[in-house]
């Protein structure tokens, strides 16, 4: 099939970028979207041109590396699907696809479709952990966790750290990402002793990184490949207010 691409090309953060047109007329419907980009890159290199840079690693939807906005949708048009798991059979012959990077102040541009998401690591360093040294713990079954809470904790823990929630949010908020980690740990007894300190520090760090506030657009939930629910944001807010009221 034939696919028309308009791809964001940008040399670095100091040089302005622009959309460049490419047409591929031998796309196989069984190709993944990233395999189509590999295919394009092969062609560009054979023509002596520079290939398009994009981040990827697992190509199975679990590492969170891939990050493309397709026709305005983070990770493309399909629910619960990272862009590496999107196959070309979902498109029609002759379709045009605009391919852009995550755009957010807190994710500075590196090159083409590659941005710097290290702000997420700094949010995690602010409190996204349970303070336990290697070798200290008691037997794993010493504290039972009811299945309901254990399963909920898992649902929130499934975040792949891709940043689509930020890219989709009109305010570039990282609330879904941050809320997911806070909710995971708030549903486990192990996380309890630090929960107040954790939520305050992580939320403050999020603001410091330049992410916006959440005004309930829910665009994040719609694009999240890990199906993180926005109840995590509500949970984060409750945790935050509880923490502040008790600290004060």
């Amino acid at each position, binding site marked *: 099939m034939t696919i028309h691409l308009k791809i964001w090309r940008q040399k670095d953060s100091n040089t302005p970028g622009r959309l460049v047109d490419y047409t591929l007329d031998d796309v196989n419907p069984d190709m993944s979207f990233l395999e189509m980009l590999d295919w394009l890159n*092969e062609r560009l290199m054979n023509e002596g041109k520079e290939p398009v840079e994009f981040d990827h690693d697992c190509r199975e939807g679990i590492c969170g590396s891939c990050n493309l906005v397709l026709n305005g949708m983070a990770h493309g048009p399909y629910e619960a699907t990272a862009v590496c798991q999107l196959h070309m059979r979902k498109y029609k012959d002759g379709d045009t696809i605009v391919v852009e990077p995550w755009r957010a102040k807190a994710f500075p541009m590196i090159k083409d479709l590659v941005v710097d998401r290290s702000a997420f690591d700094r949010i995690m360093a602010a409190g996204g952990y349970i303070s336990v040294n290697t070798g200290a*713990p008691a037997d794993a079954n010493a504290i039972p966790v009811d299945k309901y809470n254990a399963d909920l904790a898992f649902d929130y823990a499934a975040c792949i750290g891709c940043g689509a929630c930020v890219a989709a949010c009109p305010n570039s908020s990282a609330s879904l990402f941050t809320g997911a980690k806070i909710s995971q740990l708030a549903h486990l007894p192990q996380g309890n002793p630090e929960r107040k300190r954790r939520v305050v520090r992580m939320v403050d760090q999020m603001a410091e990184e330049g992410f916006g506030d959440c005004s309930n657009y829910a665009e994040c939930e719609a694009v999240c490949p890990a199906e993180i629910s926005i109840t995590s944001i509500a949970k984060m807010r409750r945790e935050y207010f509880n923490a502040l009221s008790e600290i004060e």
Partner: protein
Amino acid sequence: MTVSNNGTLNSRVPDGNLQDKWDNHKNNLRLVNPANKRKFTVLVVGTGLAGASAAASLAELGYNVKAFTILDSPRRSHSIAAQGGINAAKNYPNDGDTIWRLFHDTIKGGDYRSREANVYRLAQVSNSIIDQCVAQGVPFAREYGGLLDNRSFGGAQVSRTFYARGQTGQQLLLGAYSAMMRQVATGKIQMFPRREMLDLVKVDGKAKGIVTRNLTTGEIERYAGDAVLLCTGGYGNVYYLSTMAKNCNATAIWRCYKRGAQFGNPSFTQIHPTCIPVSGKYQSKLTLMSESLRNDGRVWVPMKKGDNRPPNEIPEEDRDYYLERRYPSFGNLAPRDVSSRSAKYVCDEGRGVGKSGLAVYMDFADSIKRLGADVIRARYGNLFAMYEKITAENPYEVPMRIFPAVHFTMGGLWVDYNLSSNIPGLYVLGEANFADHGGNRLGASALMQGLADGYFVIPYTLSDYLAENLHSEKIGTDHEAFDKAEKETTDRISKLLNVKGKKTVLDFHRELGDLMWDNVGMSRNRENLESVIKKISELREEFWKDVNIPGENNTLNKYLEYALRVADYMELGELMARDALDREESCGGHFREEHQTEDGEAVRDDENFSNVSSWEYKGEDKEPEKHVEDLNFEFVTPTQRSYK
């Protein structure tokens, strides 16, 4: 010196009873006091399970850690993709599991090509890993009573595998990552993402630093340390198509090999039986369907050649459940090497399914009938969804099509019991070392090994080395050894960029992959191995004459990174073939056609090959030299593996 008087490698396995070795050893290892720990810097290369757990644990102890990863964040690494689970000898289900049994299954599963003492230690610390992870908030599957759930995995008859839906690796890695980030916040870990180690710096024979390329700017950087920990994962991508993440590579271990570190059992590769089959030339990687599926999926092919009916129209009597038939006591849970080879045989007979004929069915119809679709969905929902996304077929309705694919490398840099390579100060952890899995790795044991190495072994064994080196001179990055390593690295990069040939890196990598899969894959023989060694060296020559690398060095340039990795695969592939040729026996994943029984089972040669082949680099255009480490089985008696 690791080559002892009788010419074999010294594994430094402590004396005593198997059960007591590790404890005795810990009692004898030297310690570094807290005030002195602050004086040491440890370079941790790679932040997968092995690297993240090591970095966090060492920083908690007070060492200064510098950690490096190719990816943009330590929250990602190949480890994140592990689906099925992690073993431990907790015996929570009370089904008769013990540390001894986990040890015995693992060493037997490895076809008696690993060290008893290492494997026993692995089983011993397995339980602490689960405790550690639960305390970090890893949401393992639980039962209604609130206690942890277990399942069974290939090669074992007990349920000892802990899991977090189909995303165990992700959850374990995020646990280790969170422990790391806690130390980043204290300043004890300095994190260097988007960095690739391109060389090791040795001073007076000891590892003293590394040279990296900053992948965003292209800058070559120098880092000095008192020890270097390689936690850089496996090298399955030599085969081009594999289940490995795209950025997995062999560069760090290969560069260390060229600086004198020996490479153990390079040809030992695991071909996993249950992956989604190849669909076309554009294919960039293969996707694993977790082996846990074999608990409820039944593997079959049509009885007759060329039976093209859709699977649901083939009646029971025309199906061959070949694993259940050949291996009645393990059935669909036969170990990986055995299952993969069986799939190859039925496809070679012309009974394979799908368009290419290179696939077999894994069928859930019986389990769905017995347990209901909801139970199956709860167990494997995300795997079924992943399968459907890739193939556009619904496995609740039609059987999955699966085929073997390269998945794991048991080989790696040689290490002693302390995880030290033969270069003092250079330690190797996780999949990057050769240590614990012998000729074949059992399911759910790589996560266990990576975390055992990082959380529970290296903190002890490294202190012994550092204590010994408390008073040795600190090396700065202005040392001439750094100048030399940096120059060699920049020269290699310029040489590559200046080839300006016509073929892309991908073209070369695909060609190498085909050579490796056809000749150093599931089934190997002398004739093919001899000829492939020549072909690889010709391909390598062509690569250095005709590769086309776009762009420049001083920006993000992923095809340049890729070219540097493929250049190393071109050398490593040859060593793998050499090792496969040299090992005149069939064991584990290494199957030599010359050594099989009449009905196609592997024939091991304990007389001559109850050992580790460890290869030493001798220089460009020279053949590597083989050393051996004899494996002495004091506590178990190697038997011919039988899963019948």
